[in-house]
């Protein structure tokens, strides 16, 4: 009798199930806290670019799955009989991760749970460490054309053998980083997090035994699928809904001659199942923006777009039962060895937004406008002690507007990610932040506008080398249902001076001198609904608070602001009369319009 049949026959009682599910989630949180308190890399501790997860004996992710990798590489490489209690595995090789890891800086630690001699579960934690070698400090280099240029590649191997650490391997990994104590701190944090997870899971087995937990794990997965099938999907009409967008690569790498790489999805909703087919997505690149994910990996990202249709739900590995992903071979999303991958962030981050666009088409615009909320630049420089240091900034952007609410300003799109405080930057790095605030006129206009992006001006106090990994420098986040696109990103070195220089979307190394200034401006959120239908008093408030200019109030919203800051009702009425609302569901913004006119891009589905 298989597990599913057994569950039907002896349905587990809902109380035990809740205790098991609650303990699994508490364990995940406990593991994450351990990582956060002890990890060193700024990207982990401030950007919170790390995940922890619990998997059952069959390798299925039973904890909320917002980013965990897979555990298959262990049994793919080690026979079951060779596993011992206290073994801990490490890997970062995307091509040997069963599609669960996407670039080398993500170091993944996994510890199998052996209970009464049997493999029953796994605890896993991985995080983005500050450097694993490769072409440049930070190990995120667009110009790598082959993964072997991107740093140390660790296949799935035992880092701890029956409780005894393999010191040779441990020291080799640390030695391959430009910032070895960061990586040592991170590795230990991840190992300890897994130890915490294993102890808690073992406690569950001691209490409930294997048979009950097998049923419980199966039911935890099934009830995630059930929530999607029974609550989320009935809100979506059956049909086929395409959407497309582009990732920028213009001028980044000589070997890559294309400028804009197409990501395309077709969402098919049929009954209680949804499929995302990425046919039409461009072939893999010579630049380091490829991903070699598998279906499970993509589902855990995409499922997030259904959160507003089914709140209070834990999305775990069970989502793959209700959602399928189809990946044509050799694309940006299904890259083949030895594709480089370190800057894949903007391929990956675009993905839920891409699928949100398809969902928006299915729901006739009843979703938020687009949110592009991750901007990254970094500097390798020398601190006051003469040590080489690396600072990576992560700046948020504006959230999309939605029916009833403006998008929120300045959000970091990483799960619970946070900004780097000005005072933290200045205390530890030779940097001086001259301005840090919301960006005027960046919000995508709408009846409910997008959130504002950020403008941050940083002066370098010591020479260094900066890099930028970003997107939307030539394009913009889309608005929906009459809402307009948000402003796109820009990076300018020494703005307003004869030395002014615009920095491209993905750049490995630009030298900066002491005294140089970098102005980073991030995306505003896409708007929702016709901006000419926005309450004029809200426009006046936005002008009064300096969020939008008087000019934009008139051109984007048809609102005339009087000298005293209030709405000039008559003039506004006149201005709004001239307006005709657009019929397009999506607004891509003027930058896309220019690219289309120049023949740089071509839409294959209508907006």
């Amino acid at each position, binding site marked *: 009798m298989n597990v599913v049949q057994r569950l039907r026959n002896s349905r587990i009682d809902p109380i035990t199930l809740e205790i098991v599910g609650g303990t699994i989630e508490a364990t995940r949180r406990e593991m994450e806290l351990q990582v*956060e308190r002890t990890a060193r890399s700024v990207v982990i501790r401030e950007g919170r670019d790390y995940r922890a997860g619990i998997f059952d004996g069959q390798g299925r992710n039973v904890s909320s799955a917002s980013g965990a990798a897979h555990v298959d590489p262990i049994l793919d490489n080690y026979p079951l009989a060779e596993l011992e209690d206290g073994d801990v595995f490490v890997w970062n090789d995307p091509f040997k991760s069963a599609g669960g890891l996407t670039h080398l800086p993500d170091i993944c630690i996994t510890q199998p749970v052996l209970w009464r001699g049997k493999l029953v579960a796994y605890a896993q934690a991985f995080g983005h460490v500050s450097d694993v070698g490769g072409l440049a400090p930070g190990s995120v280099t667009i110009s790598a054309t082959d993964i072997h240029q991107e740093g140390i590649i660790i296949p799935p191997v035992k880092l701890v053998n029956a409780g005894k650490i393999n010191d040779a391997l441990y020291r080799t990994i640390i030695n391959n980083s430009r910032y070895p104590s960061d990586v040592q701190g991170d590795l230990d944090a991840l190992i300890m997090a897994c130890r915490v997870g294993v102890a808690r899971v073992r406690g569950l087995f001691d209490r409930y035994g294997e048979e009950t937990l097998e049923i419980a794990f199966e039911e935890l997965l099934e009830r995630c699928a059930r929530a999607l099938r029974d609550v989320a999907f009935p809100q979506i009409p059956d049909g086929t809904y395409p959407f497309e967008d582009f990732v920028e690569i213009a001028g980044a790498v000589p070997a890559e001659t294309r400028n804009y790489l197409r990501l395309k999805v077709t969402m098919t909703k049929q009954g209680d199942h949804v499929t995302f087919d990425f046919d039409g997505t461009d072939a893999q690149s010579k630049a380091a923006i490829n991903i070699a994910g598998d279906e499970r990996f993509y589902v855990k990202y995409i499922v997030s777009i259904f959160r507003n249709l089914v709140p209070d739900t834990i*999305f775990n590995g069970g989502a793959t039962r209700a959602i399928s992903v189809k990946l044509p071979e050799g694309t940006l999303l299904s890259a083949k060895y030895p594709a480089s991958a370190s800057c894949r962030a903007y391929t990956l981050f675009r993905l839920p937004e891409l699928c949100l666009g398809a969902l928006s088409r299915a729901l006739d615009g009843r979703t938020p406008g687009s949110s592009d909320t991750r901007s990254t630049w970094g500097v390798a420089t020398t601190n006051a002690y003469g040590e080489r240091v690396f600072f990576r900034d992560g700046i948020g952007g504006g959230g999309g507007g939605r029916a009833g609410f403006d998008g*929120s300003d300045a959000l970091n799109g990483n799960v619970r990610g946070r900004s780097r*405080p*000005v005072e933290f930057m200045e205390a530890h790095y030779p940097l001086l932040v001259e301005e840090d*605030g919301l960006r005027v006129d960046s919000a995508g206009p709408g009846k409910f506008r997008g959130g504002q992006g950020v403008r941050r001006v940083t002066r370098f106090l010591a020479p260094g080398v900066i890099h930028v990994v970003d997107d939307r420098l030539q394009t913009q986040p889309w608005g929906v249902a009459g809402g307009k696109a948000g402003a796109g990103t820009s990076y300018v070195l020494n703005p307003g001076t004869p030395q002014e220089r615009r920095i491209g979307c993905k750049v490995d190394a630009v030298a900066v001198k002491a005294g140089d200034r970098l102005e980073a401006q991030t995306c505003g959120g896409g708007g929702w609904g016709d901006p000419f239908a926005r309450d004029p008093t809200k426009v006046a408030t936005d002008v009064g608070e300096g969020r939008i200019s008087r000019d934009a109030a008139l051109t984007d919203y048809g609102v005339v602001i009087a000298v005293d800051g209030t709405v000039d009702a008559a003039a506004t009425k006149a201005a709004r009369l001239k307006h005709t609302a657009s019929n397009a569901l999506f607004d891509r913004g003027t930058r896309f319009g220019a690219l289309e006119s120049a023949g740089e891009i071509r839409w294959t589905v209508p907006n």
Partner: protein
Amino acid sequence: MPFRIGIDSGGTFTDLLAIDEHGNTRVIKVPSTPASPDLGVRNALAAFLKETGDDAGAIEAVLHGTTVAVNAILQRKFRPMGMLVTQGFSHIVEMARQTVPGERGSIYVWVKPPRIVPLANVREVPERIDARGGVITPFDEAAARAQARWFRERNIDTVAVCFINAYADGAHERRAREILLEEYPGCHVAISSETLPEYREYERAITTCMSALLMPLLGDYVRKIQGHMAELSIAAPLYMMKSGGGASRADLAVEQPVHTALSGPAAAVVGSAWLGRNCGRSELITFDMGGTSTDVALIENGRPAMVSEVEVDVYPIRTPAIDVVTVGAGGGSLAWLAPGERLQVGPRSAGADPGPACYGRGGTEPTITDANVFLGRLGTKLAGGAVTLNVDLARDALTRFGAQLGLSALELARGIVEIGEMNMADAIRQASVQKGRDPRLFTLTAGGGAGPLHACGLAETLRIPEVLIPPSPGIGCSLGALVSDVREDVVMTDIQREEDADVARLHRNFGKLEARATEALERQGFAAKDRVMIRSADLRYRGMRTELNVILPAGAIDAALVAAMFDAFHDVHQQSYGYAYRGKQKIEVVNLRLTGLGKLRELRPKAMQGGGVATPTATREVYFAPDGFRPTPIYARATLTPGTAFAGPAIVEQYDTTTVIHPGQRARVDDQGNLIVATAAGAHAS
């Protein structure tokens, strides 16, 4: 015979506890007056005077914990306030830390809550200092003056001043305050370099804004209490409880009101520490359960564990506070179904109105209290008969809800207790295991109206050997206030590396901190002999985000002492996280801290007369998993005198709580009236 008085105003009752030098106690309970909480305090004091023969002169001190501040924050009852910031940084509060709470996809659902300061009221002034305190741009006095007038013209009488890097040097902020007060006398001004001289501008700004907002609020409240005391001819000083578990004289507390925000839970922990100290127990986990939530804290070596940041509603507040873990599991916590038929218990709560179904005030959904009364764990007469619980209404609610899941009322009631206790156990784990502490080495103390109902069961689950139920678990907060010392915490960010630490600078900076604490204690009348100074530092391995606090050994700050401080960090890291890098990685100093204690006369509980024998007053059917209902003796707490001992299962009832003692557990009463329950798990372990 001088009495010291502790008063706590809770949601329902205002409790007054008085103890004299012989340990004689008096308890007064009067209804709270939520619309104007000072009236409840006056009524309690008046009732006390009436009971003790109107001798106001016998009161030596009044220590008071209030929820006025925290309630204002939770209800967002904020007056329009202003903020003065460095030019170029007017969006510190708008941007916050850019974090979207929750899991992936929350960005599609979540909406940023309104900011504490409207953006239009944030004004800039040209000035800038660097991270070491050096001036980059001088402070523009004329611009500051113009902004002060701008606030005055708009009657914005509450202003927070938060300049970039002011933690390193507060001169510009202090000058800004002078100008604000010159231009706008009577304006409430909080400056960040005094409220919280620590780095990270958003957290410091929010804390400073909170302090500014609370100034008029707490000031008014304190003035009213002082007025009531004067009317009652009470000349004794009034002290306000703070989140760090000590008190400040009221006139000082209102200068830094943000530090009183979480005084309630903190006071309860201080009370538990005192109870433990007086019965020879210094390692405690406190478990306080009320109507909507459960608070848990760790006491080691007699000292409550501290944190430097708390979250109140959506606001991160940097303030020295007792580390209290709160989960939404209380007597009124509701059972509900999340999508996918997931049975949840709390944090949704039936609140005080309508309350649990068994209260008969219109509640129809089952709560933890309904489960407890259905299972016989809770009797139907509470508070000496003042409250009657209707078990039929509880059964109806359980039956109705259980039908959705195919569960009987009994199965659901068991489940509600089990899931509720899972959440409580999680809070205990967060306070202990997650900080590297093994709960099996601690005594669990139970407080609050509902704590003793669950403490003994939880202790078995967590293998805690012993549970302590104090004589009056319901008045923990006023006890805590009563036994508190005066406490002044001061802090300074001083980032230094282990390998080239500037010993002279550390010496100088600790000297500055000590001078500040000394001045505050002297203002409150503490002579040198009654002052205790505890120096500590927040340290971390270079590159870590979170610091760990290390207490400095006594003695002059010299190279040897600084070396000992760094060395002790490895041990603290080992204990907290299970590993350390002694000899392998370098450490850095982030913050220097100093706690100045003004010692009030130590109070001691009075030993009670013993010799009694435990005699049940009744027997009732009580459910114990896994065996089911069984006849269980009921004891009246008042009849349990020191030396009496009995075995579980048993129920002990008293005015303010009910204790459930499980089969296999053994209870005895110590000479101060504490009920000490030895668990079966503890018996097996030893």
